[in-house]
Structure formats: structure tokens, C-alpha cells
């Protein structure tokens, strides 16, 4: 067969076009950058050093979102959620080390930590959801979930770098659950329930830029200096005075994954508090860079299909003659 080599080369060229496209994904020029903060982005600032572990926010979250308590002690007397779950959208956990004598200290100390949705600037859950059941509000940046659209594939659960969205495994009609920053309350002009009830202002609601500024202010204060802390909303007149704790020089969520709209301050390293060390480039941008390089306008697949059809047509025609 004199044509074998040429056909082989043609086929190899057509067949490897998609592969070639995939290989160009490393090129910087085509990369999908991180998404940017929406214009009216709202968020939460949680200050671990102010938190007294009263869990008023956990209770308020239950009332605001109509979730059931979870019991993990022998007698079901206390609401004791251990982690986020299908019925717990906000949880306060505790870090304890050694003698646990000192608050906000890594060695022989303890610290409280809040877990709830981070409302990422460039959320993985929104990127991966095949049916647009996870949506990011273009103005406020709130990441909301829409069960009426959801197919229950749990890609959001698997892909969230913070392990936030949770699925219900013990019902035939399961749903995904996660904090939606009380968007139903915000629609009524109220603030998220967790921020509203926090007695120390450890959870503070406000514009993301305002919260970032406040976080920077707190971090710049020398430890031990008395300062004023707002409750409920950043800059509110509901204040109290307290000595500043020793802050780590980092606002978690300012850069992680291209930024998150819930941010945290703490005196104990964040990886010790269950917040992973994450790069600045969002995982969604890495994934979408590949997806959109290969499938941009479907040009590459259509071109490859054309080549494949030409070859298949040519080779099956010959094949048919053979058989007749």
C-alpha cells in the first residue's frame, strides 16, 4: 500500500490537533485570569481573637435558615454540630494545643474559628456546576445555590477548596446546603444573622473593601493597645473597647484563590485552624483556561471533525468496495 505512510501522517495530524490544543494550555497569553471583585461586593470579617465561642451565631443561623440542631453528645441536650453539614451552614470550632492556657496562642493555647461559605471572588463551585445551580451575584458577589436547577452531582462539594457545600446522603430528595450570606434577609434590608447577633463583633458585615481596610487597621495596631471595635456592621456606632490581641500579619481571604468575600483574622496560623494554605491563582481559572483553550468557539473540535470526516469517508468508501 503506497499510500499508507501518507494516510498515516494525515490521520495522525488530524487526530492530534485536539491534543495539540490541549498542550497549548500552558501558554500565558490564553490563560483565563482570576475573576475580579464585583462592584458592590459585600462580605464578612471574622476575627478569631474577638470570638468568645458563645455560638450565638450558630443559633441565629439556624433560626434564619430554618435548619435543625445536630446532637453529638450522649444526651441530646445541646446543639453540638461538629462541622458544616446538610443542616449546619455556620459552625464555630475550637483549636486547642498543649495545656490550652492562653487564648489565640499556637503553643499551649486555644482559639475559636468560624466555618461558613467564603463567597470566593472566583468560586470553584460556580465554575464546575454543570447546570448553573451555583450562581455568583454580579453586584454583591454572594454565591447562591438553586436547588430547583441542581442535579445533585456533588461536583461543588468535591471541588470547594474550603469544603463548604454539603449534600444530604440520607434522603431520596437530597439538596446541597451552604451559607448564602442570608441573602433573603439582605433582600429585606437586614444583615446576615451571624453578624447581627455577635456580641463582640467577631463576625462583622460590610463592604469587602471596608472590611479589608478594617482588617488592615487591626493588624497594624500594637498588641495590647486598647482600641474600639464595631459590632454588626463595619463602622457602626455600636462599639466596645478592648485590648488588641497579637494578630498574624495576614488577612486570610485577601489573596487566597484570588480573594474571598469572607475574610479572617487570627492569632494562630490559619492552617492550624482548618484553613488550607492556598495559591493566589484560583483553581477555577486553571480549569477554565484548559476548557476554553480547547473548546474556544468550538473551532478546534469542528476543524478536527472535518478532517476526521474526510478521512473516514475516503477510507470507508474503499472499505465498502472491498466488501461488495
Amino acid at each position: 500500500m503506497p499510500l499508507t505512510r501518507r494516510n498515516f501522517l494525515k490521520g495522525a495530524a488530524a487526530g492530534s490537533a485536539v491534543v495539540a490544543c490541549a498542550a497549548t494550555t500552558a501558554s500565558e497569553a490564553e490563560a483565563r485570569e482570576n475573576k475580579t471583585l464585583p462592584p458592590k461586593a459585600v462580605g464578612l470579617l471574622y476575627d478569631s481573637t474577638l470570638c468568645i465561642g458563645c455560638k450565638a451565631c450558630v443559633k441565629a443561623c439556624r433560626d434564619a435558615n430554618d435548619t435543625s440542631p445536630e446532637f453529638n453528645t450522649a444526651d441530646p441536650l445541646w446543639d453540638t454540630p461538629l462541622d458544616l453539614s446538610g443542616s449546619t451552614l455556620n459552625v464555630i470550632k475550637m483549636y486547642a494545643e498543649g495545656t490550652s492556657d492562653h487564648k489565640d496562642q499556637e503553643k499551649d493555647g486555644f482559639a475559636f474559628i468560624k466555618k461558613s461559605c467564603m463567597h470566593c471572588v472566583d468560586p470553584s463551585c460556580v465554575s464546575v456546576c454543570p447546570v448553573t445551580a451555583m450562581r455568583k451575584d454580579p453586584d454583591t458577589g454572594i454565591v447562591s445555590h438553586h436547588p430547583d436547577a441542581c442535579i445533585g452531582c456533588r461536583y461543588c462539594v468535591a471541588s470547594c477548596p474550603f469544603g463548604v457545600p454539603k449534600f444530604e446522603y440520607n434522603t431520596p430528595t437530597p439538596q446541597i446546603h451552604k451559607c448564602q450570606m442570608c441573602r433573603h434577609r439582605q433582600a429585606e434590608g437586614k444583615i446576615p444573622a451571624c453578624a447581627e447577633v455577635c456580641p463582640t463583633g467577631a463576625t462583622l458585615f460590610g463592604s469587602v473593601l471596608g472590611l479589608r481596610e478594617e482588617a488592615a487597621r487591626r493588624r497594624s495596631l500594637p498588641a495590647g493597645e486598647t482600641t474600639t471595635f464595631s459590632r454588626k456592621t463595619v463602622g457602626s456606632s455600636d462599639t466596645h473597647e478592648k485590648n488588641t490581641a497579637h494578630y498574624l500579619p495576614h488577612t486570610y481571604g485577601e489573596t487566597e484563590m484570588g480573594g474571598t468575600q469572607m475574610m479572617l483574622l487570627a492569632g494562630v496560623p490559619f492552617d492550624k485552624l482548618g484553613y488550607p494554605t492556598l495559591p493566589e491563582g484560583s483553581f477555577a481559572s486553571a480549569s477554565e483556561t484548559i476548557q476554553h483553550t480547547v473548546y474556544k468557539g468550538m473551532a478546534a473540535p469542528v476543524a478536527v471533525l472535518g478532517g476526521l470526516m474526510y478521512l473516514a469517508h475516503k477510507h470507508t468508501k474503499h472499505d465498502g468496495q472491498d466488501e461488495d
Partner: protein
Amino acid sequence: MVTKTTVIATVLALAMAALLGYRFVFGLGAVANINNGYPWGIWVAYDVVIGTAFACGGYAMALLVYILNKGKYHPLVRPALLASMFGYSLGGFSVLFDLGRWWNFWHILTPGYANPNSVMFEVALCVTCYCLVLWIEFTPAFAEKWGSAATKRKLNKVLFVFIALGVLLPTMHQSSLGTMLVVFGTTVHPLWQTTLLPLLFLISAVSMGFSIVIFEATLVTNVYNRPSEARILGYVTRYIVWLMSAYLVLRWGDIIVEGKLDKVFSSGGLSFVFLLETALFALPIALLAPKANRIKPQMQFIAAVSMLLGGSLYRIDAFLVAYHRAGWHYFPSVGELTVTLGIIGVEVLGYIVFVKKLPVLHPVERALPAAATTAE
């Protein structure tokens, strides 16, 4: 038709049906051990990801015969297409019972809901189309059995479109199954997490496609006492050697370039499974590199099995073993495993019924001269 194999396959299929009934009444957690740390279990990693890679025989052979014009492999196409048809259809079926809110499944293919940024959307759309294409590609077998010659001729006129799609679509979604993991970022161990995932998944899927053709042809030869196809299969083995060499160069090259070489030996149990993968991928190269070995049925079979195990381990590792959520654990439950075995049971049953009732295997009297003329 009633043999030990068909009876076992039927029992497994019935057990699966019962367990799935239970799952649809009491929820996924009633049967499966998946949880909020490991929301995907073997129903995704095995039934869908490995299942469709095992079903790449039709893709690999179509690529060879119709695109690269290697007509001599034609007798291998139809059995391979059949296995692909079952593998993919059951992969699609597995997705359906793994979906928590399965009644909404049509959203994924509906404009207004569909999200083109989602790799899973691409996979779902592509796999659905490919299932249809496979059944169409296989229609000549139905036409030969029940249709007229005119029907078959008409069919042959348009079949090239579906053959082309039958090569394009698996190229797209088998690579995308790898891309699906990119968004997991640091949750997947660095030895598996790389932007080369789509390419590594694609190469290993095609290679698994060639291996399953060898695996099935060897079994069919022995079970149905047919003349050996070792000679023609010997030519197929070379593609496995090329593909696996490329795979290992890319995988190890990426690890070296990205400066992850230390992790190869310092990651405990993950180091072990990583090296085991490499060993299973390298064994076919070692066995089949000497040309004399390529026509030996035992060598072909061992190499194919090693390749299939390596490809499966790679996928299980990437999706489950190398996926880490602090404080969470996952190991499949007996019920979960039984469902997966039931899927395999249905596949085996369907394959046997189709092979016996439809013109799938090439007629024996043609097989001998066809095999003899393959020597170039």
C-alpha cells in the same frame, strides 16, 4: 446460553437492581459510603471514569481502521464497538443513579441551565452524544440481521459522519475526564495534579482501548474455540508500546520539570501506588518491545491486563486515593461494590447475547485468509 458465567452475571445484575431500588427510596448514603469529604466514590471513579476507558476499544479501533486506514484490523472493529456500546451506555446509566437529584438530569443538556465553563457539562454532553453515535455505528450489525441490503447501503453512505464523530467525541471527553480534576487543585496530591491531566487521561484511555481489544479477543478465542487472532493482535500491540512510552515520558517529565521528584519517594503510601502505576504501565513496554514477543498470546494477554490495571489504578488514585480531605475517609461499602459488579454483570450478559444473536464476530472462514494476508 445458561452457563456459569451468565448465571453469575444475572445474579449480580439482580442484586444491583435490588440495591438501586433501596438507594432510590432511602438515599445514596443508604447503599454507598460516600460522604461530604469524599462525595464521589467508585460509582463515579469506576463505573463512569474507568468504565468508559475500558469502553475505548471501539474508539481505538475506529481510529486505526477508518482514520489511519489500517484495513487489516477490520475484523476487530465490530466486537470492539459492541463492548464500547455497552460500556458507555452503562456508564451513562451509572451517572443517572449516582445523581442525587436525578429527576433534573435533563437540565445538563438544556440551554439556560447548561454551563459551558463546567468541564462536567462538556463530559456529559459529549458522552451522551457518543452513546448515540455508538448505537448508530453498530446499526450495520442490526441491518445485516434484520434489514435489507438497500438499508445497509444507505446506512453505509452516511456512516462516515458517525465514524468521524465516534473518534472526535471520545478524544474530547476522555481528555476532559482528566481536566475534571484540575479544579480540585491542592486537594489532589501533586504527583497526580498537573495541567497535563487531559493529555495523560487521553493517552492512557486510547491505550486501554487497544488493551481491551486484545483482552476480549483472547477471551473470545478461548471461550468460543475460534482460531487465534494473535497475529493480527500482534500488530495492535505496537501502538500500546508507543502510547505508553509517550505517557511515561510526559508523566515523569512533568514531575521532573515541576520539581516534584522528591515527592515520588517521600509520599508514603501514595509513593507506593504511584510507583505501582508506573510499573504496570512499563510492563507492557518491556514485554512487547521485543518483536518476537508481540505475536505470543500469553505476552499479549499479560501486557493488556497490566495496561488495564495500570490505567484503572491511575484513575482510582487520581479521583480517590490521591484526593485528600482532612478528617474524612472513604472506602466503598459491600453494597456499593455489588452495584459496580452488577454493572459489569449486565455488560457481560449483553455482550454474550449480542455475540450469539448478531453478526458481531467475523465469519471464521474469512478470518484465516484475512489474518494470513496481514503480513506486509
